[in-house]
């Protein structure tokens, strides 16, 4: 008892200080909302940080799924773009034909662009509805035409191929021609056999003409950087700088034309006659 008294007399101030602080903290925690919340879950700031970190990891793990959904979204956007291009030509009663194109998104499994004849392999095949003769797009422009398909893969002839001929037009002019590659620089292609009487300016945009069943019209191809009349001929050779960078294709969009067979058969009949 004596020692307790001694303790109190010796440390009285400190004990009173501690008691008062405890009283204060009791007030703080029981009456102040902010501090109460912090006190109840005193580590909530750290928990929040950990949560954010795990969310980041989760996002990273899900990045494939997110990517897929973005690809699908892009495909829908491209479909809409094609639809808009045809919108003012369609008789309203037959607006079904607006739905003649479908876009299939796929990633690229293999891609060459340094050779004379370049090829691209897509990671989707006939199981996904890809058939030979369909056009292939990338985000920045057209890329090639499907040649062969296996159930899970599709083999695409790149634009950068000696046999590629794609019907193209200079936007908002009447200049039509075939796009070919001379096998030298993967950034440039030539638009051949454009009649001399059509005027073409440097800087004009080159787009697909829509005259084949492969590509709908209005897809971007490149920009005119040079147009020279071919000596001894009645045609221009127009040098085109491509919008798509062939070495850097990660995703491709295959364009399915539902009416392609119909059109091809009809045209064949005429030829056979």
């Amino acid at each position: 008892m004596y020692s307790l008294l001694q303790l109190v007399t010796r440390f009285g101030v400190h004990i009173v200080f501690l008691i008062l602080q405890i009283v204060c903290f009791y007030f703080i925690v029981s009456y102040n909302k902010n501090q109460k919340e912090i006190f109840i879950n005193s580590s909530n700031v750290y928990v929040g940080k950990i949560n954010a970190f795990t969310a980041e990891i989760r996002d990273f793990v899900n990045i494939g799924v997110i990517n897929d959904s973005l690809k699908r979204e892009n495909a829908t956007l491209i479909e809409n773009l094609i639809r808009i291009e045809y919108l003012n030509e369609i008789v309203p009663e037959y607006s079904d034909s607006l739905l003649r194109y479908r876009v299939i998104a796929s990633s690229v499994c293999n891609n060459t662009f340094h050779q004379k004849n370049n090829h691209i392999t897509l990671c989707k095949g006939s199981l996904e509805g890809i058939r030979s003769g369909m056009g292939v797009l990338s985000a920045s422009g057209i890329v090639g035409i499907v040649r062969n398909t296996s159930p899970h893969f599709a083999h695409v002839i790149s634009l950068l191929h000696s046999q590629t001929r794609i019907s193209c037009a200079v936007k908002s002019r009447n200049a039509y021609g075939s796009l070919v590659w001379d096998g030298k620089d993967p950034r440039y292609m030539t638009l051949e056999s454009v009649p001399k009487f059509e005027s073409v300016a440097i800087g004009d945009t080159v787009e697909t003409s829509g005259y084949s069943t492969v590509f709908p019209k209005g897809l971007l191809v490149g920009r005119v950087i040079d147009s020279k009349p071919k000596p001894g001929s009645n045609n221009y050779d127009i040098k085109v700088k491509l919008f798509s960078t062939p070495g850097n294709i990660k995703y491709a969009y295959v364009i399915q034309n539902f009416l392609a067979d119909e059109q091809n058969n009809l045209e064949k009949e005429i030829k056979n006659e």
Partner: protein
Amino acid sequence: MNKLLTANFWRFGIVLSLQLMLLKQISFDQSILSYMQFLIYPVIILMLPIKLDRTLSLLLAFIIGISMDMFYDSPGVHAAAAVTTGYLRPFLLAWMEPYEGYNVRESPTMEKLGFRWYAVYLAVLLFIHLLFYFSIEAFSFVFIGDIMSNTIISFIPSYLIIILGMFLFKPNN
């Protein structure tokens, strides 16, 4: 002794009403100034008589803090800071004791102990008080950046106001 009591009592009333009626109302919208709070009430604790019983001065500090809390709607926050200031004050007084010692019955005022002594005394305790107050207010050292900027930005105007008050009113007791 009676004079000392009345002086402190009046000081309590005047400083508290100045704090609550005038300084509490001032706030700024600008980004960095929004941290600013004018807290001059610690001066009441600082100017309690030097030889006052330490337990009693703790209890007085607690009462001052609680009466601040009543008006600031923050039960315990100001009180905790005030009690801490009241607790640390005797240590600082002992440490800063002049060679000739203190007079038994006096308060630590600028008039008696000189501007330089008072400037240091006020700076140390006011800074501790504000630091403790803002720490308790944030209640977690995660917000150490906020606590420090609050403390520093509020310290400067509070300090200047108190020093100015000392020059104007020259309190003796």
